[in-house]
């Protein structure tokens, strides 16, 4: 229990340090946040124009698309802002940059994830929360469900990211492949679930776990069914555990780099 509490305190401290480091260059921070919000608004022009002409798309209306985009953008944004190192894991592994992290007292993965923070992630998180609010599915009376949906979305993004970028332990030079898999995750998470059927649907619930990023969170917020909430929790936790397990297994194969570097 004490160990878990310590780990929790460490995660809070790491997140706080990340936020402070991002805010150190205040002008650049707010510029990146503002442009990411603008970027996300641009994406929405398509849906605004489309839903001005059709009422629904296989059961999805503008409210559902707001919720879809909101959970996905907020989940991604929190990961990118607080655990931005996930996108650099492949390079860390390939170029022996994990060396200084191996001798730290807490789990290596946590240091690696928390070693980078992207200010634009805050822009995604803010715009995601705004879109969730616009959907009308995020209210004060269902706040626990909203928090659950966001936590599961972020956990899935993080877990899947760790899985994709940990491939470098076995395959080497996989940074480009991992980045494309990560981008596929983002792309599919932004389009309504009923568009995809057949084998692709199976892929979106397993190998490319988009379902736990935005599809199930939207269902949980809209239908408020216990079975959906449990499936979402189980799915997101599985992806996160798979990521941590794969990284730990991969670490046994990790070979050190010859580059001199310091951490801190």
């Amino acid at each position, binding site marked *: 229990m004490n160990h878990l509490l310590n780990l929790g305190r460490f995660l809070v401290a790491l997140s706080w340090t990340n936020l402070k480091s991002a805010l150190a260059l205040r002008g650049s921070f707010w510029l990146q946040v503002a442009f990411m919000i603008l970027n996300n608004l*641009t994406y929405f022009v398509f849906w605004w124009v489309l839903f001005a002409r*059709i009422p629904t798309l296989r059961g999805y209306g503008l409210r559902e698309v707001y919720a879809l985009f909101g959970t996905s953008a907020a989940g991604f944004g929190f990961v990118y802002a607080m655990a931005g190192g996930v996108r650099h894991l492949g390079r860390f592994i390939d170029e022996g940059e994990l060396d200084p992290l191996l001798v730290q007292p807490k789990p290596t993965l946590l240091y690696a994830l928390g070693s980078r923070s992207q200010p634009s992630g805050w822009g995604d998180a803010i715009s995601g929360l705004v879109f969730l609010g616009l959907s009308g599915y995020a209210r004060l009376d269902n706040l626990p469900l909203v928090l659950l949906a966001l936590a599961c979305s972020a956990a899935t993004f993080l877990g899947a990211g760790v899985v994709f970028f940990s491939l470098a332990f076995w395959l080497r030079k996989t940074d480009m*492949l991992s980045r494309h898999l990560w981008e596929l995750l983002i*792309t599919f998470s932004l389009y309504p679930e009923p568009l*995809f059927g057949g084998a692709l649907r199976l892929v979106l619930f397993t190998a490319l776990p988009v379902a736990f990023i935005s599809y199930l969170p939207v269902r949980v917020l809209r239908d408020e069914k216990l079975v959906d909430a449990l499936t979402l929790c189980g799915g997101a936790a599985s992806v996160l555990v798979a990521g941590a397990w794969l990284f730990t297994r991969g670490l046994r194969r990790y070979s050190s780099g010859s580059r001199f570097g310091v951490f801190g």
Partner: protein
Amino acid sequence: MRFLGKYWAFARIAARHALSERGELYGRMAFFAVVLGVFSALWRAVAEAGMPIATEPGRLVWYLAATEWIVLSVPQLHVEIQEDVRRGDIAYHLPRPVSYVGSMLAQAAGTLSVRLPIMALTACVCAYLFTGRAPPLAALLTFAVFAVAATLLASALYVGIGLLAFWLSDVSPIYWVVQKALFVLGGMMLPLELYPRWLQSVAHFTPFPALLAGPAQLVLRASAPGEVLVLAARLGAWSVFVAMLLWFVFRRASRSLQVSGG
């Protein structure tokens, strides 16, 4: 001829470089295929609710294939120019007996000579597989001519954004704004006729419709020769405007470098 030879060398090196970056090319192709797959599913679903435009879903997939072909082929030269300015390498480029802007445009042409055919193949194969139909060959060929001109003009725009690095430490925000304006006002995902009237009017005061929606309309529906001529005139006029802008901005930039130092 020797004058052109220098720029030919720049283009050739850029083409070889683009060919050597296999991962980048495969990544673009995969992304292109996924986007077309997603949108073919999307337009099929839209058709069930009633098409908002008098055309078939398949044609809108080809429209997207056309706009994305242009967008995904254009090299992001502003990053290279910004790095040249930031590292001070620009000081070595300026005294050379070649125009810096000209060399950048030649590099763009070289990169495009590799990317355009590969992305065209991806676009045609994927769009055909997803829709089971293809636009008339004549429409595709006419579009291809305009698309090549549009990619060159878009490259020149990005060179212009890169030149702003002489005054700004980071030109990425300017690039993002221009890129988003290109996506929205250029009608990348939707034909402009679906937009509200006021947004269509705003778009027509910018070069973006001539870069994307204009050429892509050629694969969406049969265009009258008059419309094709108007598009050619628009592209020509914007090319002249951007060329003059590049000349003016580069002149000011190099003067500021000579006065203030690198």
